[in-house]
């Protein structure tokens, strides 16, 4: 389980209606991409930070760490804008610094906006919501089962890895590669076996091969909250368009 999965499963906004979180997260993402980065991007970053830390209750340090992870890629990409390779070798690109900072700001704001959705909503809720936009139930169910299996297989791999290490299977490179190969080879039959037993467990509860339907609690959507989110987005858009 990644830190993002963990936070998504436990944060204060987990039970909020998906429509609200999607409107906010995708709205912030769209604004970050559409508006000129200055001063909209910093404003979006501030809003996203407030939403995640004050709203969803994620500690600021955790939020900073999660946001910083993709930033490495953004900075590498931006760095290439600063320099140019011409006839005289490598030189500073004209206007390169401005372009690089604009790109960094915009990308950071976009990531932060999207993270307000992914940090407050478990992946399984997002996948389940695909049904409401017309994706066939079978595909959604397969995706959800795959997700569950990835988690279980991840745990299995982790404990197999620990068991190998405990028996000194990782003391040098040669042995580590050998051990890892054996682990990978073993993971498939173990996972298939698990799938087989899961099928028996489902059948025991009356599953006959049709839909894997479960009751999904759907919190009531509040029109007032939706309106507030919309107002916030509009305010951000006006601020981003008019202030520069």
């Amino acid at each position, binding site marked *: 389980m990644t830190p993002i999965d963990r936070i998504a499963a436990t944060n204060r906004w987990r039970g909020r209606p998906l429509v609200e979180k999607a409107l906010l997260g995708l709205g912030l993402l769209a604004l970050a991409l559409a508006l000129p980065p200055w001063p909209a991007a910093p404003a979006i970053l501030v809003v996203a930070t407030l939403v995640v830390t004050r709203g969803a209750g994620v500690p600021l340090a955790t939020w900073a760490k999660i946001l910083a992870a993709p930033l490495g890629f953004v900075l590498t990409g931006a760095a290439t804008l600063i320099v140019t390779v011409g006839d005289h070798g490598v030189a500073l690109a004209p206007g390169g610094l401005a372009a690089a900072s604009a790109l960094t700001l915009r990308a950071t704001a976009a990531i932060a906006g999207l993270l307000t959705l992914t940090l407050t909503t478990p992946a399984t809720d997002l996948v389940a919501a695909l049904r409401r936009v017309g994706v066939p139930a079978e595909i959604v169910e397969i995706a959800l089962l795959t997700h569950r299996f990835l988690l279980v297989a991840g745990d299995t791999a982790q404990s197999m890895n620990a068991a190998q290490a405990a028996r000194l299977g990782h003391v040098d490179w040669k042995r580590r590669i050998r051990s890892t190969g054996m682990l990978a080879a073993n993971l498939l039959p173990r996972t298939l076996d698990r799938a087989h037993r899961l099928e028996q467990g489902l059948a025991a509860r009356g599953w006959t091969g049709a839909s894997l339907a*479960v009751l999904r609690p759907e919190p009531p959507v509040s029109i007032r909250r939706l309106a507030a989110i919309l107002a916030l987005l509009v305010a951000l858009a006006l601020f981003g368009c008019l202030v520069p």
Partner: protein
Amino acid sequence: MSLLVAEGLTYVYPGGVPALDHVDLAVARGRRLAVLGPNGAGKTTLLLHLNGTLRPSAGRILLDGAPVAWDRAGLVAWRRRVGLVLQDADDQLFAPTVFEDVSFGPLNLGLARDEAEARVREALEALDIADLADRPTHMLSFGQKKRAAIAGAVAMRPEILLLDEPTAGLDARSARRLLATLEALEAAGATLVFTTHDVVLAHRFAHDAVLFQDGRIVGHGPARDLLRDAAAMDRAGLDAVEA
């Protein structure tokens, strides 16, 4: 009359491992039945037969005196009445949250949304895990997973509840708490059949017991007497309960 009867059940796993050899067994309504035996004796295999998951190569199974059928309709009717909780809860939990997982069985019974939801709440309450309803199934302790898995079967209100090692891996107090929970379910009308390696627990909790060894029943009778019978217990490779 016995609620569930198995006669001459014989089963060989694909690959040639013999697991059941002419097993006769009767489950009486309201009498807790403990199934004991060493590892590999065939306890899990037996439970998988009692709800139709595995089909015996010989023998038959009667539910309320009527032979069961292994076709789709027969299995559906069978599993409405006989619930099964697997040895490993991770094999059973599949939905993102506990609430959603427990709702799976009631929906398969064809219950309406409201009624299914009431069943889920009731089962979570009965298993003492109402506070875990919205927890991801993946983020539970071993004992909590076990309770969630049992709730999934209980929500279907089966007449017989088959439990494969329900207390294995639980600390002594949690095991006792779980047994108290099961007793309450029994008071609500479910007959319990469970496997266990804990002879003392079986002695205290079960009314009847069967002893397994190498796919055969080597002893059956009232738990109080059978589990103290050193000779009978020795035949199953088990240590008798001290008197």
